[in-house]
């Protein structure tokens, strides 16, 4: 069987201990898709930052709240969605970490890194609560999703 597109979904609790698990899954998917090591690293970091934000700032470490992570593997791109159950936030109100007055702040760079390393990033607040981060990384033209015999 040849896999050309697929969806992989996991739901985790609001605990930072799950970050390594999500990172490992992301690394497996980017390896499967044939991303080069550097690109795979930055995709993994972007997912880790998104899930960290969802657990820490979205769900505020509430053990009763979950984070849903969805990977959509396509021949020419990888789509990743991270959704929390928090109150959401206004993306436009986040301070710019490059402003001189923010350079020495210890936090506030995660979303900047995600935007730097992914091709498309969208923040979608849900009316029922929860924030969804939608990210896309295109597969470079010289690599492709591996054809896997299963």
């Amino acid at each position, binding site marked *: 069987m040849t896999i050309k597109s697929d969806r992989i979904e996991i739901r985790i609790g609001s605990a*930072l201990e799950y*970050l390594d698990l999500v990172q490992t899954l992301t690394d497996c998917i980017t390896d499967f898709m044939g991303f080069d090591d*550097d690109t795979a*690293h930055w995709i993994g*970091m972007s997912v*880790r*930052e998104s899930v*960290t934000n969802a657990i*820490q700032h979205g769900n505020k470490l509430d053990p009763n709240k979950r984070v849903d992570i969805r990977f959509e593997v396509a021949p020419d791109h990888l789509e990743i969605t991270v959704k929390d159950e928090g109150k959401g936030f206004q993306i436009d109100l986040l301070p710019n*970490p*490059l402003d001189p007055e923010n*350079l*020495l*702040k*210890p*936090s*506030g*760079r*995660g979303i*900047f*890194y995600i935007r*730097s390393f992914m091709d498309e990033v969208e923040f979608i607040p849900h009316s029922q609560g929860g924030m969804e981060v939608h990210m896309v990384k295109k597969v470079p033209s010289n690599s492709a999703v591996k054809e896997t015999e299963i």
Partner: protein
Amino acid sequence: MKIENRIVGDVHLLDCSGKITLGEGTMAIRNTVREVLKNGGKKIVLNLADVNYIDSSGIGELVSSFTTVTNQNGQLKLLSLTKKIHELLAITKLLTVFQTYDDEAAALNSFK
């Protein structure tokens, strides 16, 4: 995350290895730097050659440690940035904040 504190003259060379990520990694940096300050150390070099992963919280902890040391009239410098740490510092303009060195002797001499 492991940190070994080598003292060369009055400079504390902190050899970091492993991951500097939210939680254990960032706390290790924070606690070690504060311990050095508490014991009177003012000249600190973080050797990042063997750091195989860092996230935004790790970068934030480098900034936080830099601020803490500077506020106590000390100096914190970075040694042997990996390619990825260099890129993360560069795109957030933090290379303008830190003094960075590629070799240990140059880092040590910079305090003279």
